[in-house]
């Protein structure tokens, strides 16, 4: 039996985002169980534990599931991730924080048990800038970019990167913090209206996203010059603003929509069999797909671990090896019924962060779907590597970790 805990948040302030993710995660694992009889014949036992996006409940969930042989954690909240990184490392259980958590965990030499592929926040910042460079013929000089961000550790993540990039590409950067929860953003948007930045980037979360998009519409800010990070790019964020949100862009490191072979399999083995998770109304949404994607990576890593260690009954440390040697190729994705669903990448001991690729999606309010408008864009590794090196080195020093790759 392979234990995959799912620390979900179907309640609390961010429930609307937690539900689709948890559903996607659960449905994919059910699919593997129902269709393939598990991974390599070992059934998956998914234990769902409700955190409500609350760190303390996260601890409780971690402690209650870890003794049952958990293989990998998806903590799903910045707070829980930070707080589990040392704990889980000490307990020898890997963490996969997919597109969130601690960015410098990309450095596997320091963070032996933490994986954050396929892309992280700094990648996100860089990719957004790259996209803008593309749109402007490679030149952003004398342009202004405003960053509107959730005034928390998460929201502040891209600042450093953007500052570096603004030096490199000569654009002006304006910072606009929004305090939690972010229901009132008049000041920020009046400022944007006054200063008319050429582009607005957003690192928002929860209600902040919906309000920002509505306010942008209210001041008639051109939506296609407004780009959100992947946690500001779900249907939930754009729908409340209705038609006005049309043209809003967001980054994403996997595909939206349900146009994939795996969906047929899900229909056949899971939903029509009445085994779907939740209310079953989340299929094909961005966050559902993200949950699905997370589950798929976990399953593939487990498969890899079985392969490496030659046993079907893997434990957490074997799972770690599987995660570290995971390689997602186009062929493999196609085989899984997920052609072009996510970027290709190859993890390694040094690189726990994947290829750092994401694509830009754009909201089409008419059809109510996200359109993928670019290929997977590669982030500016040159700038980022140095930053990651620096931050992880600081962490290593603080916690007496020897950088190594075994």
């Amino acid at each position, binding site marked *: 039996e392979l234990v995959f805990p799912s620390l*979900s948040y*179907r*309640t609390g302030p961010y*429930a609307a985002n937690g*539900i689709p993710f948890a559903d996607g995660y659960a449905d994919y694992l059910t699919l593997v169980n129902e269709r393939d009889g598990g991974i390599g014949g070992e059934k998956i036992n998914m234990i*769902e*534990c*409700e955190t*409500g996006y609350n*760190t*303390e*409940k996260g*601890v*409780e969930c*971690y*402690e*209650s599931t*870890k*003794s049952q042989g958990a293989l990998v954690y998806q903590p799903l909240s*910045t*707070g829980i991730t*930070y*707080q589990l*990184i*040392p*704990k889980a*490392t*000490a*307990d020898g259980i890997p963490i996969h924080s997919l597109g969130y958590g*601690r*960015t*410098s965990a990309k450095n596997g030499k320091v963070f032996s048990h933490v994986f954050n592929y396929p892309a992280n926040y700094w990648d996100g910042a860089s990719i957004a800038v790259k996209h803008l460079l593309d749109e402007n013929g490679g030149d952003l000089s004398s342009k202004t970019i405003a960053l509107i961000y959730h*005034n*928390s*550790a998460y929201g*502040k*993540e891209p600042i*450093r990167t953007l500052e570096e990039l603004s030096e490199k590409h000569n654009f002006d950067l304006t910072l606009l913090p929004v*305090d*939690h929860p972010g229901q009132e953003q008049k000041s920020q948007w009046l400022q944007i209206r006054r200063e008319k930045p050429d582009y607005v980037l957003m690192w928002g979360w929860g209600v902040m996203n919906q309000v920002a998009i509505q306010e942008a519409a209210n001041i008639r800010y051109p939506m296609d010059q407004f780009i959100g990070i992947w946690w500001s790019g779900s249907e939930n964020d754009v729908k409340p603003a209705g038609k006005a949100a049309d043209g809003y862009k967001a980054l994403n490191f996997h595909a939206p929509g349900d146009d994939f072979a795996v969906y047929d399999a899900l229909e056949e083995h899971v939903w029509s069999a009445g085994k779907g998770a*939740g209310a079953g109304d989340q299929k094909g949404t961005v966050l559902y797909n993200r949950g699905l994607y997370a589950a798929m990576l976990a399953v593939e890593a487990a498969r890899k671990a079985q392969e490496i260690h030659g046993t079907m009954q893997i434990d957490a440390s074997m799972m770690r090896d599987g995660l570290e040697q995971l390689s997602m190729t186009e062929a493999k994705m196609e085989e899984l019924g997920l052609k072009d669903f996510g970027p290709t990448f190859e993890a390694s001991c040094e690189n726990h962060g994947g290829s750092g690729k994401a694509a830009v999606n754009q909201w089409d309010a008419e059809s109510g779907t996200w359109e993928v408008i670019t290929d997977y864009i590669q982030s500016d590794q040159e700038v980022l590597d140095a930053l990651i090196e620096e*931050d992880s080195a*600081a962490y290593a020093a*603080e*916690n*007496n970790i020897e950088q190594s790759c075994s």
Partner: protein
Amino acid sequence: MLYREAGDFKTSYEADGQTFPIRLDRRGYYAILVMALAVVPFVLNDYWVNAVFLPFLIYAIAALGLNILTGYCGQVSLGTGGFMAVGAYSVYKLMTAFPEISIAIHVVLAGLITALVGVLFGLPSLRIKGFYLAVATLAAQFFLVWLFNRVPWFYNYSASGQISAPERTLLGYRITGPETQAWAVYLFCLVFLVASAWIARNLTRGSVGRKWMAIRDMDIAAEIIGVNPLTAKLSAFAVSSFFVGISGALFFAVYLGAVEVGEAFGINKSFLVLFMIIIGGLGSIFGSFAGAAFMVLMPVFLKNVLVGGLGWPTDLAAHLEFMIVGALIILFLVLEPHGLAQLWRMTKEKLRLWPFPH
């Protein structure tokens, strides 16, 4: 009769001032203390410590602190989260600046620093009263959280803005950091809790406590009979913040190990601790324990019953959990408005009369 408390046969005023005047009670409490100190540490595992005991012990300290301010001195405060943050950030700065000094000392110092901050924010209480004061203390809550988020010095300029506790030991045993032993952290926090409760009890049974209670019950009359409201209120703020600071320090350093201020010490924390003392019983040390136990254990218990036992989907279980906790709060109130501690007292009074109805 199951429970007897016959007559008042004390022969000295010392004996009369005892914490547990009834022998049965006294024995019970000692038994619990011995259990907590000598038995529990041996049967603990990670789950019990991290999911139940640590939060309970740490919240009980915070609840004691707030109970001194709100329950004994009558100043409702919603700044607890902010003050806990002061404790946490103080201990973090101290731990990283003076790694060679014992963590126990750092925790106490963090408490003292918080006491100072508490006094500062307590100043308006001289003018502002009741719910106005409660809302005014929110200013402390929001300002402090903003400050710790804003000024990088507080989080040692780390890129993430989070603080994480480096490994520290006491007598050779790890107290903070990832590789601690369940019993060690448990005992560490337990000692702080027992000491806090003891100090709180001493303060509240003496003249300081009476000053506080006088201010709580009728501040004008108290002033006219000779209580200086300034010192009484500020000392309550100081002592209260001292405990709250300690609990914040433990919360960060021992329990979570890594926190982000907005998330860990947000307004919810303030409300949570306030709920604990109101449910447990204002102006009661036992109440602080009972309230903390209720608010920590009830959700865990319900979750285990509903999800683990009855197999409900987690979200429905979580919703139901909210409804049940809410309904229980209301039920307790309707039964006994003065908290669990009073409920306990009334039960004892009834037991004393048992089997007669009154």
